[in-house]
């Protein structure tokens, strides 16, 4: 077909010097290589962040445990949260967006390839800056050697008085730098989608993944910038003696909360919308049906984008807002369940009557559907302010948002790995290992996060170092910790699968899943120029039209 790679004689040397390969990767501006760099970078930090979670769970496995000191425990939950959000989830989202968006819209690269590389390295060095605090933060003050103020770093904990040394500065600067990278990449994705679509691809014919990443990027531009502004203010406070968050000079600690959560809640949607995007591509292919309700899916996503910007203060019910503010944020938070519910029904309707193939990517997507539903239901429970007054800052909240982030986002990210791995490497992932990974992780996930709700309901606060025996929390904490080992084992199988399949997996061919979007029309892995000829599309499923010239989609759309 027209979009096949240009056949060139293989000129690769048998053994290229390692330095040459390294140089190519470091200086690359190719969206596919940068995408893979983002993803590998995120995987490294996923292991680090997971290790930190493991330390916390071992500490909490029984009452009066002293596996680590309280100081180390504080550092662990701060580093775990910061790492997982900013240096695992965000790079994963941007990595897949980088790799897939240009391929899916039939473009040769992103709109600004060099900005793309610049943004990646900013994000990369942001993560290094955060972890450099382990050696660099001690300073001359005898302060802690890693940030320990929690991932949302409430004032006045971050003031010079309570945060001596430089650990908080490393936290601030790491997030500031990676934030610039995020904004750069988001602008790049927006521009790519608006300017580089192939002929025939009107906005209404873009794959859903592209639409959803468009909304995600718009949210990054509007939501990460407030965090940047708040971090600048914190730097002014810490280095220039400013009083933004200094209550003794009339400043307000609550305004930091507002600024942080104006970023923090949209951030949840920044992460979950790409997860929706993966599900919206994978579920139709393995149900052998076109997505149900494409226009409604797009409209629901845009709705989520707008409403998601106006729900932030539901993180602050326990602070004591006015009753008007409480009412507004309760209602807006509940309202967001409507477009999200529409999406769940659309995925179910896509599967309904389909010829479902339970390959590994589909298994993870089905797990996502159920788990994300439960995560949404506990979300609605917490959106009611009186309920939140009771359970805010308890393990119930921790269980709720891990249900969203692990049960929702991480499961679809795993699905995306299994689904697009053949495109990225040219080799299939092993199905047996994949299914083992799925079941191990599913069991581990449910052991950990189902049972984590219960100590929360029983009154166990989050971020405590240890607890008294005999409060009814002991057995639940034990089960929760046991679940972590299943998840770690599952992740180990996953990494082993990736490595084994990369070297030994069976050849994938261009289109192993019999899918319908443009990335499957080119080689696996795609050549640097993506498409030998820029494709022309007539419908949302260009490869379906190609494979079924007798019954093409464009007759019906």
């Amino acid at each position, binding site marked *: 077909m027209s979009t096949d790679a240009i056949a060139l004689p293989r000129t690769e040397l048998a053994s290229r010097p390692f330095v040459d390969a390294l140089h190519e990767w470091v200086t690359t501006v190719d969206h596919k290589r940068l995408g893979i760099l983002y993803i590998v970078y995120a995987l490294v930090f996923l292991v680090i962040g997971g290790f930190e979670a493991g330390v916390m769970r071992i500490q909490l496995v029984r009452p009066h445990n002293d596996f680590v000191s309280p100081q180390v425990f504080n550092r662990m939950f701060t580093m775990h949260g910061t790492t997982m959000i900013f240096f695992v989830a965000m790079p994963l989202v941007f990595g897949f967006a980088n790799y897939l968006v240009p391929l899916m819209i039939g473009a040769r690269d992103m709109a600004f390839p060099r900005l793309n590389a610049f943004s990646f390295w900013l994000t990369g060095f942001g993560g290094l800056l955060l972890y450099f605090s382990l050696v660099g933060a001690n300073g001359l003050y005898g302060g802690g050697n890693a940030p320990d103020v929690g991932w949302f770093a409430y004032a006045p904990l971050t003031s010079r008085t309570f945060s001596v040394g430089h650990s908080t500065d490393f936290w601030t600067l790491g997030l500031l730098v990676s934030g610039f990278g995020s904004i750069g990449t988001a602008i790049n994705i927006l521009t790519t989608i608006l300017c580089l679509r192939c002929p025939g691809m009107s906005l209404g014919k873009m794959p859903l993944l592209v639409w959803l990443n468009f909304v995600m990027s718009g949210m990054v*531009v509007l939501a990460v910038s*407030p965090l940047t502004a708040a971090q600048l203010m914190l730097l002014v406070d810490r280095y220039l003696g*400013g009083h933004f968050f200094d209550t003794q000079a009339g400043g307000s600690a609550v305004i930091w909360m507002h600024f942080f959560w104006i970023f923090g809640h949209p951030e949840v949607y920044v992460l979950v919308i790409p997860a929706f995007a993966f599900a919206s591509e994978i579920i139709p292919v393995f149900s052998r049906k076109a997505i149900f309700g494409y226009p409604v899916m797009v409209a629901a996503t845009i709705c989520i984008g707008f409403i998601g910007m106006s729900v932030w203060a539901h993180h602050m019910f326990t602070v004591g807002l006015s009753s008007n503010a409480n009412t507004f944020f309760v209602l807006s938070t509940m309202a967001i369940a409507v477009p999200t519910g529409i999406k769940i029904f659309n995925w179910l309707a896509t599967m309904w009557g389909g010829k479902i193939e339970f390959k590994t990517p589909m298994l993870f997507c089905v797990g996502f559907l159920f788990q994300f539903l439960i995560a949404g239901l506990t979300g609605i429970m917490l959106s009611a302010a009186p309920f939140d007054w009771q359970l805010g800052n308890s393990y119930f909240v921790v269980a709720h948002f891990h249900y969203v982030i692990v049960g929702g986002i991480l499961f679809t990210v795993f699905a995306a790995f299994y689904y697009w791995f053949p495109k990225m490497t040219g080799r299939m992932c092993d199905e047996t290992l994949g299914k083992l990974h799925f079941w191990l992780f599913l069991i581990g996930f449910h052991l950990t996060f189902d049972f984590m709700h219960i100590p929360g309901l029983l009154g166990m606060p989050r971020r405590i170092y240890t607890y008294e025996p005999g409060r009814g929390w002991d057995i639940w904490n034990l089960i929760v910790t046991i679940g972590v080992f299943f998840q770690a084992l599952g992740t180990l199988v996953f990494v082993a699968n990736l490595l084994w399949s990369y070297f030994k997996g069976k050849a994938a061919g261009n289109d192993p899943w019999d899918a319908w979007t443009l990335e499957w029309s080119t080689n696996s892995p795609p050549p640097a120029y993506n498409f030998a000829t820029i494709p022309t599309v*007539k419908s949302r499923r260009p490869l379906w039209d190609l494979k079924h010239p007798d019954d093409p989609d464009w007759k019906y759309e």
Partner: protein
Amino acid sequence: MNATPTTIAEREIMLSRPARGRVGMFGLIAAEAAIFTIFVVAYLFYVGKSLTGPMPREVLSVPIFYTICLLSSSLTIHVAVKALRRGNVRVFGDWWLVTIALGAAFIYGTAMEWHRLIFHDGLTISTNLFGTTYYSLVGLHGLHVVVGLLALSMVMVFTLVGNVRSEHAERVDVLSLYWHFVDAVWVVVFTVVYVTGR
């Protein structure tokens, strides 16, 4: 997709979509606008909450002349880009230089105002909440003016060397978008700091 190879040249595809530079610049402007919004909100939130003096009413005077300088530079940069579109590089260079001069005058005005505030009125960024929010907001805007001036000066150097021609009008226009944004932000900052906050 057609089974037969397409014949549409890539150039035509690029021409049928909006220009990359403009879209990218609008994205940057949206992000910057969000950053300024947070600083403006902080300023408004802390108006009148300082525990000690000096207060804005006592020390701030309205910088009308320098405001006129900055706002009129939007006009001159527009005239400059229009001249470049027509291929008149000389006229472009003249108006571009006027734009830089007006921007520099504005920065000079800010510098003088700060000098007076610091050494005469004893207001620094750590004096009180007013100082913290005032220097942050006006300083953030001033920083954007300085960055804009650096970019404008680079184009000026290229013009003097003779490397700017009419086909660069589109790119220069993208830069002028940024300059217009910096001016528009000043309208907001001016209103907040010198009108409502005083």
